């Protein structure tokens, strides 16, 4: 597909600018606030604490999973969620946000969503390291399965960057779509395996559908590496689901890109 070729070449050619813009996007997000960078950690911590409190203390559902305390189980899913959540909506709004790159100068639009997804990834990289430190601090020494984490990290990045392109293009054309994305986000969160184990869901059909949720796939991958000690090829269902979901996402993103690219500067 020549569109795929075009998109990849644009990313290669503009990679330096991309990186600079991603860095600057990062800085912009946290600058200005008095606590600045600290918010990158405070926000996630508060979120995690809230969920932990509600589930483990309030609902008293926080049972250990596979011998691992619920707290660690929770953060192993929540940390990647922060990236996914940020890119899910941030990616959708990315092209609107960077409209000056579209309407005032000649810049490859297909790389704009990547700016946002990369900037969020960089923060998440740091958060991931923090998470791993917490694991170590709780007595969980690094195992060889931890080597999979960069792989799941990358898989997450690839999927959500494709999503960002898809959603970014559509959101320019339709504010309704942008709002839809914002509304659907939390639904996807609750219908994923972050707070609970999807495998324990009784209904077979529902379980199968939930396992196609890319958020579930990533969270499962993280847990396989950190807690369950499962190799990526040992859980073929999750792997297969990822491949299917990723290919579909990329195809959709490229199709939307091709259809709408010429009209984007007119609409913004």
């Amino acid at each position: 597909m020549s569109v795929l070729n075009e998109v990849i070449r644009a990313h290669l050619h503009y990679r330096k600018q991309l990186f600079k813009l991603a860095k600057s996007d990062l800085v912009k997000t946290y600058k200005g606030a008095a606590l600045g960078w600290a918010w990158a950690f405070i926000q996630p911590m508060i979120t995690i604490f809230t969920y932990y409190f509600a589930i483990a203390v309030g609902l008293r559902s926080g049972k250990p999973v596979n011998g691992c305390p619920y707290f660690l189980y929770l953060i192993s899913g929540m940390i990647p969620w922060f990236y996914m959540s940020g890119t899910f909506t941030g990616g959708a709004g990315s092209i609107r946000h960077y409209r000056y790159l579209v309407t005032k100068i000649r810049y490859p639009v297909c790389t704009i969503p990547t700016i946002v997804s990369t900037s969020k990834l960089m923060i998440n990289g740091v958060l991931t390291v923090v998470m791993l430190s917490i694991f170590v601090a709780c007595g969980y020494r690094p195992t060889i399965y931890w080597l999979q984490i960069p792989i799941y990290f990358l898989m997450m990045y690839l999927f959500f960057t494709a999503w960002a392109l898809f959603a970014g293009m559509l959101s320019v054309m339709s504010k309704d779509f942008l709002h839809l994305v914002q509304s659907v986000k939390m639904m996807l969160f609750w219908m994923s395996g972050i707070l609970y184990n999807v495998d324990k869901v009784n209904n077979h059909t529902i379980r199968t559908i939930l396992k196609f949720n890319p958020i579930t796939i990533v969270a499962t991958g993280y847990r396989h590496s950190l807690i369950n000690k499962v190799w990526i090829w040992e859980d073929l269902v999750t792997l297969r689901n990822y491949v299917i979901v990723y290919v579909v996402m990329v195809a959709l993103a490229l199709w939307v890109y091709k259809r709408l690219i010429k009209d984007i500067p007119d609409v913004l």
Partner: protein
Amino acid sequence: MSEKEIAIQLKNVSKKFALFKSENARLKAMLLRKKPEKEKIALNNVSLEIPRGESVALFGRNGAGKSTLLKMITGVIYPTVGYVRVNGRVSALLELSAGFDPELTGRENIYFRGQIMGVSKAEIRELEGEIIDFAELGDYMDQPVRTYSSGMRARLGFAINASIRPDILIVDEALSVGDKIFRKKCNAKVREVLNNGTTFLFVTHSLASAKSFCKRGVVMRHGQIVYDGDIDSAADFYDRMRIES
């Protein structure tokens, strides 16, 4: 291209903006490739050839299609029908403060914008001194652009765009860049660039300015070119063109 070096060529170019009842109607039509019900025609079958080194004034009232034409030449929007071919590096002094990343410093933005315009890093390095001198921003050069006033941004924008050795220079006279002294400097800079054989496209309402810089004049009306000839005749034509209410 062939022997006659053409800097800008438009052939049968039309630009139609589709009008839809709602955003979602537009999205649906575009994804499913349906024809729109109503269209606004910004450019209607425009054909134009500007050889290299020529200086052309573009006249026309607001809404005549001048800015659409310029955006097409700078590559920001695409034609609905027809070909737009531009040979060479285009520098447009239109939206001077556009294309800056507010978090980067002035100096970093020089590189950023240069790279976006297709100038190699080495070349920007050579030009950096000239740009900084021209912009007269002093210590602000190493401050993030978001701390600049709009005048400062315009000055930096002008300095960059005028210095990158463009093959084609587009100037919208409506921009006001700084105080009288700086404006004089800008005019001189534009002349210097033109003396190097740069192709020049000048959008202006001032006939006197046009005559002083350009040899050829093109008059646009309602998305079409209604006159194309030597600057004096074109200026006369534009002057005499009766304004219809």
